């Protein structure tokens, strides 16, 4: 380009820092951040209970798996109690041979939302596809 030739003639007068690459990098970073901020949201999809349940058919309840979140870090898969650390392995052993990857999650009234989400999270990791929420007590 012309300017570099002129700069050469001037005998090394252009002692300014070349900021153009820095601006390029900054612009790219800016664009990347603009893209990432809305894209990075994550969630766990949970199916809500039917507010107007039909009369329950007798055989539907037979092989359902209900994960109960109990107080002080205990979890119960149907009737088997497991602790927080063993939950994932247990869920995995339950869901690996099962064709239907449905779980119902039920929370004790003393547990926090974070505990329940932890349980759902572990269940998803163990291969569960559909997470159902059991309805709360009727008022």
């Amino acid at each position, binding site marked *: 380009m*012309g*300017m*570099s030739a*002129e*700069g050469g*003639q*001037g005998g090394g*007068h*252009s002692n*300014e820092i*070349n*900021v*153009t690459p820095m*601006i390029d990098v*900054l*612009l790219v970073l*800016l664009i990347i*951040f*603009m893209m990432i*901020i*809305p*894209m*990075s*949201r*994550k*969630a*766990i*999809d*949970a*199916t*809500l*209970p*039917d*507010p107007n349940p039909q009369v329950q058919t007798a055989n539907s309840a037979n092989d359902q798996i209900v994960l109960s*979140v109990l107080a002080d870090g205990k979890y119960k898969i149907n009737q088997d109690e497991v602790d927080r650390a063993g939950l994932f392995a247990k869920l995995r052993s339950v869901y690996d041979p099962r064709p239907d990857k449905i779980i119902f999650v039920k*929370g*004790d*009234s*003393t*547990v*926090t*939302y*974070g*505990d*329940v*989400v*932890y349980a*759902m*999270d*572990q269940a*998803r*990791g163990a*291969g569960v*596809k*559909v997470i159902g*929420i059991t*309805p*709360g007590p009727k008022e």
Partner: protein
Amino acid sequence: MGMSLSSGAVNASPNVTPMIDVMLVLLIIFMITIPQLNAGFTATPPQGQNLKPSPEEDTDQVLGIDASGQYWFNKALIRPEDLEQLTRNTFEGRDESILYIKAHKDLSYDKVLKALDVIALGGVRVAALISDQTPGTESLVESDRMFTKGGS
């Protein structure tokens, strides 16, 4: 300008100062708007590992429940008794009834469940519980790792 008159063409590089000004202003605007996006409502969602990416879209409806149990529907504070009517109006005639729930992680599950029951009455079928990825972990579910919306 003075520099073009000077002999020897010493200052031939483009003047980038205005561009830097603009960029700095943009940067500041972004720094200001990002907290503004959650203005009024703050909640620390729970952390998890096996989460499904769900990129934000304009049509998303978000119910926030903050640490004191107040409801925020799309970042506006609402009264608990209005929630059912509001969801009913919002989801009337939509095929996809997903409501995003952003709730504080230390809330009692009772409170969240109560909200979930109410929005179920309002016609919501799927509640997407917004969570943060635990730093340094990756989902074990294959469809989550591909950066797509599919999976369910």
